[in-house]
């Protein structure tokens, strides 16, 4: 079983690739993709399964791009 307790959903087309969320993640879960979205921005993506659903990234995102989920009990 993966050790994931949380996960985020990123609205890729609305992400402006500003990267201000990246340093707020305590587990280095998020980084900008090498690919770009329809507007030409390098969008945010998850790069590992360490997300705890802490909401830090969502709370600093100026464009409200991130939705956060967290399982209450570890699976």
């Amino acid at each position: 079983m993966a050790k994931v307790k949380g996960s985020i959903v990123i609205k890729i087309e609305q992400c402006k690739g500003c990267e201000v969320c990246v340093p707020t993640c305590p587990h280095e879960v998020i980084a900008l993709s090498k690919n770009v979205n329809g507007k030409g921005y390098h969008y945010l993506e998850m790069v590992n399964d360490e997300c705890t659903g802490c909401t830090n990234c969502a709370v600093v995102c100026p464009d409200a791009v991130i939705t956060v989920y967290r399982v209450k009990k570890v699976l």
Partner: protein
Amino acid sequence: MENIPTTADIVKEENLVYKKTKVLTDNILSYCPGCGHGTAHRIIAEVIEEMGIQDKTIGIAPVGCSVLAYNFFDIDMQQAAHGRAPALATAIKRLLPDKFVFTYQGDGDLAAIGTAETIHACNRGDNFTIIFINNGIYGMTGGQMAPTTLPGMKSSTSPYGRDTQTMGNPLKITELVAQLPGTCYVTRQAVHTPGNVRKAKKALRLAFEYQGKNMGLSFVEIVSNCNSGWKMTPRNANEWMEDNMFPFYPLGDIKTPAKLEL
């Protein structure tokens, strides 16, 4: 994305802990990537949602980058002439005293062309909330020097840095309005880190709660970035803000009501 585990077990409605508030519309924000205006909008909208006052709140948009704020908040809004938002808010609040009324203003709007409106509304103690986004610059028009521009800070009209001998001193208008008898709550916040966002949200909540108790004018400054005007990446702009803006504009409450009875 092949090394990412399946999140299907987690991404379910019952596990939802954070989603975009419904007090923001689906319109894409017109702000530059990483601009604090967006974060400030979001937490104002979250406070309105949490207080259940969406249909009782009227916002006043300024002139500046946030001139289109009425496209982004799903509440009643009116856009004011440059700097005149506090005058318009005074009128609206006096005519509709049961509504929650706030202005949303940049530093050029609030502390330059609108100085008189700001000071007199604060001195009269009109019962609304001013939300003041201080990025030290005129963002919308191309990064010109504002009254809030720091000593030595470069802008498009002070390309070698603000020389206080010839260009005057920056104006700490938030400290100034805290001296006036009509303000009940004056605070300075930021929205670039999760901790700061959470604190700023609490401050906005208090400001609206005081307004609900007719305690006078509540004033929330948010020290913010203008990465386009400052000519930095958003992450560098946030670091620059911590190193340069916060020492001159220290965060925290400047004036609080004698007793909180919330």
